[in-house]
């Protein structure tokens, strides 16, 4: 797909790198000459120098094609909001994701129709809330070097997977269900295993996907 990335700071540069690795076409806009030079050195001609809140700059970046995705990820919330608005309202960009630097500005984005936002501070706070206390998830063992973790999740009656066969459960990539402990006995999980309320499920998860797995097994509460 075609992606326009407005803002070449840490977020913009890393997103661009990943998008390119995934095989997407990217144009990146950066205003600061020093940053532009570094980015141009790494990414070449896909980096454009200019103010991404200027309509003519966005047009040079191909906003009128329009891109399938617009990332407004500068360090300035007002700029990100205006970039996303111009893209969505002026050029029918279907998907615009805006970075919110100050969580207090989140309400302005919502009010002005930019629903897809990413705020690092809010995300980190969300993780903290999830971590203490961790509803329904126990971290049993962490293997730092291997990037592996063994966790235990107790299936609740209202869990979205209660009554489901393991074969039909889409666990996050990098995680695997190992065993189920029920009525004092442990069973190794295979595709035919059906998860029931009260089951204590052991799982191996890679690279911090424990919370994603919990979401799949227990729902997002």
């Amino acid at each position, binding site marked *: 797909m075609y992606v326009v990335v407005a803002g070449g700071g840490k977020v913009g540069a890393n997103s661009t790198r990943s998008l390119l690795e995934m095989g997407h076409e990217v144009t990146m806009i950066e205003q600061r000459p020093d940053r532009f030079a570094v980015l141009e050195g790494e990414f070449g001609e896909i980096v454009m120098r200019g103010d991404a*809140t200027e309509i003519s700059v966005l047009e040079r970046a191909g906003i009128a094609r329009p891109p399938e995705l617009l990332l407004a990820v500068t360090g300035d*919330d*007002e700029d990100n909001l*205006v970039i996303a608005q111009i893209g969505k309202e*002026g050029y029918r960009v279907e998907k615009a994701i805006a970075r919110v630097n*100050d969580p*207090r500005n989140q309400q302005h984005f919502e009010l*002005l129709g930019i629903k897809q936002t990413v705020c690092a501070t809010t995300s980190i706070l969300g993780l903290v809330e999830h971590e203490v206390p961790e509803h329904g998830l126990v971290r049993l063992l962490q293997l730092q070097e291997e990037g592996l973790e063994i966790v235990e999740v107790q299936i609740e009656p209202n869990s979205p997977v209660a009554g489901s066969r393991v074969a039909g459960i889409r666990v996050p990539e990098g995680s695997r269900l190992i065993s189920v402990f029920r009525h004092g006995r442990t069973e190794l999980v295979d595709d035919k295993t059906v998860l029931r309320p009260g089951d204590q499920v052991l799982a191996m998860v890679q690279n911090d996907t424990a919370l994603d797995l919990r979401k799949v097994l227990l729902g997002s509460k």
Partner: protein
Amino acid sequence: MKAVVVGCGRVGSAVAKGLVAHGWQVTAVDQNEDALMRLGADWPGGFVIGHGMDTRVLEEAGVTEADAAVVATNGDNTNLVIGQVLQKRYEIGTVVVRVLDPARAAFYAERGLNTVCPTQTAISVLLDTVRSGAPAPSRAG
């Protein structure tokens, strides 16, 4: 009538003083305390120190009861966002926003925001003056 002026620079302060002269109750908002000096020693209106993106600052300045608002900070995008917030969230009847970039001013004007673009005004006046071949004031006078 009550008005809030966000951004108390050359333009904002002059508009604020002008409105007071016409009998309005005006509160000015600026991040910088020094901006108060622009309003003069006998400023009868209100003054709130803070950023116009902060809803607590706006509410302290009385946006919930304002009849009109003028947004003239030194950032176009800041003005565009604050202007929309005042219009949509606080439903102020008259909101005027100063935008220096003609393209953005036109874009948001088409979408129902009352934008004023001094750059566009200057361009138009300069063009008209040259085209009409008006003589220099000294010779005309």
